[in-house]
């Protein structure tokens, strides 16, 4: 058994923030629209492109409508949290930095079996892929680690390392809990207290209530707006429309409104938009270097 008291969920997040701020990361805040992964935040997706160096870290709520289980299955949620770190270019000692971050949240890596297990990452919707690992602590997958190779269909100029901590799993590991609902969020308050009812209500919305016709129309509207914004050479607002398309598609998928063939077509439409925005963003950087 651990000698020291395990950190609460919020203490663990604070420790990660401290650690990566000390390393020199820009601490960002969660993005203002629904994302299915911290990778989709423009602070990762767009900043991975171009020649500029960039170090950032932030908490990102992840919204995946199909993964909800009405709060009944304590292993499946439509809303949970990632801690996202992007180091561009990847420093040579990036793995040592990562292992030190585990020590910083209270994991004695000598006592545990910490392993890097092959996991190649691909996000076809964003035209992005990379090679890396799942990190296991005593068999629990607590982090995804990826060296990006392509983003938005473009080869990256400087290879970034992306570290995505699954905050619930990391906390389950630290606190020795079997499910996220049991996690201590703050003294006397569990993760389940905070989010269980939310899981139930959102599952009802995602699976039963979300208006299919409206969403179908909205998808087309976001797509149209994205194209207009690309025309106007405004890649940052255009990228928000890509995110909205992606989330709208995920909702339609949860409603069972997307057939297998349509599915490929929707993904293709989002990917086309993501590529155009990525290209425009890079062209802009070349014309007028930011940062």
């Amino acid at each position: 058994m651990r000698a020291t008291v395990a950190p609460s969920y919020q203490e663990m997040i604070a420790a990660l923030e401290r650690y990566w701020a000390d390393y020199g990361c820009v601490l960002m805040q969660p993005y203002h629209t629904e994302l299915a992964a911290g990778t989709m935040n423009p602070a990762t997706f767009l900043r991975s492109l171009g020649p500029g160096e960039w170090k950032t870290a932030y908490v990102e709520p992840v919204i995946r409508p199909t993964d909800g289980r009405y709060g009944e299955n304590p292993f499946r949620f439509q809303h949970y949290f990632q801690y996202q770190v992007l180091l561009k270019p990847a420093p040579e000692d990036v793995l040592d930095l990562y292992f030190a971050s585990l020590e910083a949240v209270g994991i004695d890596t000598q006592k545990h079996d910490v392993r890097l297990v092959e996991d190649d990452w691909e996000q076809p919707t964003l035209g992005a892929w990379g090679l890396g690992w799942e990190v296991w602590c005593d068999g629990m997958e607590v982090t995804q680690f990826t060296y990006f190779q392509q983003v938005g269909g473009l080869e990256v100029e400087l290879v970034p390392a992306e570290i995505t901590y699954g905050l619930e799993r990391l906390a389950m590991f630290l606190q020795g809990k079997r499910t996220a609902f049991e996690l201590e969020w703050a003294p006397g308050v569990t993760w389940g207290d905070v989010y269980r009812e939310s899981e139930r209500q959102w599952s009802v919305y995602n699976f039963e209530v979300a208006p299919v016709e409206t969403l179908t129309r909205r998808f087309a509207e976001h797509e149209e707006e994205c194209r207009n914004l690309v025309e106007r050479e405004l890649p940052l607002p255009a990228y928000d429309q890509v995110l909205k398309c992606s989330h709208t598609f995920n909702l339609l998928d949860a409603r069972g409104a997307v057939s297998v063939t349509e599915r490929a077509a929707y993904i293709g439409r989002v990917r086309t938009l993501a590529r155009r925005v990525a290209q425009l963003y890079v062209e802009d950087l070349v014309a007028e270097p930011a940062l």
Partner: protein
Amino acid sequence: MPSLLFEIGCEELPASACLEAEAQLRTLWPPDLGAARVFAGPRRLALLVGDLPEREADEWVQGPPEHLRDKAAAGFAKKRGVKIDELEVRDGFLGVVVPGRALADALPERLNAILHGLTFSKSMRWDDSGLRFARPVRWLCAKLDEETVAGFGGSSFGHRQTHEEVPVPHARDYVDSLRAANVEPDQGERLAAIRAGLAELGLAEPNERVLAEVVYLAEWPTVLEGSFDERFLSLPRRVVETAMESHQRYFPLEGNRFAFVANGGEPETVVAGNERVLEGRLEDASFTFERDAAKGIERLAEEAARITFVAGAGSFRDKVARLGALVEALGGGEPSREAARLAKADQAAELVREFPDLEGHIGAEYARLAGFPEAVCAAIDEQYLPDSAGGPLPETEAGRLLAAADKIDNLTVAFSLGQRPTGSRDPYGLRRAAIGLCRLALEAKLEIDLGALVSRAHALLVEQAAELRDDPADAVDFVEERLEGMLDVPVEFVRAARAGGVSELGAVARLAETLAAAAEGDEFERAFVAYDRANRLAGKSDGAAGEFDPKLATDEAELALVESLASASPKISAAVEAREFGSAIAAAAELRAPVDRFFDEVLVMADDAQVRANRLRLLLDVRDAVGALGDLSQIPR
């Protein structure tokens, strides 16, 4: 003699990359520089050579022929940087001996060539060095005895969590230095240690696929044992095992115990952590199982019916309709028809989406829960068998029928859509399906009249308005070609038999075997000669009559052949029909003497065109009668 260590230090390599590198390192190291031991593990690839020569071998660089000395010698000598009188003559050519370099001078270049010569099916870049590798390379260590090779490091690194830099004083010390730093570099030793650890826990035959992977997941493997709450034993065993193997790379033991391979840490802590993770996975799986079970197999079947099977070939509703028709055509009764109806229900199950390996098995479980007869459930369970070249076949009658129907349908669909397998691409596993069909015919003695069944499946696809492009007839050839590699007879006999009068797969195989067994015998020789002589002359000539006209036959030898053919032909075809191929050969052998006599006494190419055409037809009729035994011209004599 000097020894060499060359180590490429990496961030954790995938098991598949270790295997690729291991094979390539053996060929990248030149054998004339001594035998190399090759090490491959998650954080390092290494070569250890014990008996290096002091120098590279001298190299003979051949120049122009000696007789061109006046014209070409000066240019060649200049190019090689030597004087003309230093050129030597060997085998009529001028040339120069380039002395081998001292090894210490040659190694930097050679080792870099090895580093850059390794290729991986998936590679990446991580900095601007231009090197591509399976994962980032973080250090290079090269020692020639106690000297560090110029341009390389002289240290390795130990176990990631317990040790840091490990100096390697002498190439010979490499393995011992690493073992002292909690790294076993030799994959063979790691494998042996894991096997021994598993055997101690009572597991004599571990899952080899998992084993082959975990050897490359740990540098300092320890086999540990854990257990899970007994309430999960109420889940189907296969669900429990899949949850352990597919993601966690655990080894299921008896009851509620499991083994796993750790790479470090305190055993008690590591076991407790892994037990918690597994129980979480099992609890998640049981949630999913119960949700599926609550829906029930009939509702799952309705949901699956709406799922697309293959783009262009409709939904699982269509697929299931074809399976029903095919098991019926295969002679199946009620259990196989019911199994066909429910075969694809689990495609709508959440558990199958989670663990695709469970397809079939989990459908069978849901059918059992719904109270279907065991024959139906077992058939659903066995429909994907055999799932590997030598894997077990279905044990039940209905299972065999459903397994055959599923494979025939997959083949027909893929070939009809123009998606036949190529040398490197076989996304639907059609080769495995074809071999499976052959084994069902050969080993399980299932009657598979392939041509008719493929036509049936194709006709149904057409009725279902599938978007077909190609004729699926090639699917039949594709399956029959598998027989060539599976039967213990020369391929020519299989090729011959495929053109014979039987189309059922097992019968084609038995015909090939009968032909091969009879090939050395006298009877076969006679049948063969009758076929061969008739075929050689008539098979290549134009102008045979459409039908034999007895009135035009006048010669005695000709009439004798007509008579013999009239007697032999029905005997041959009846024997082939009855699959008594030995008798068919005996009947065909009767034709040799009359054929020989016919050729001796009758001029086939008679002046009278009608007579000539009639005689050619007679010979073709002889060939075709014997041809019920196959295309004997395939058989070399």
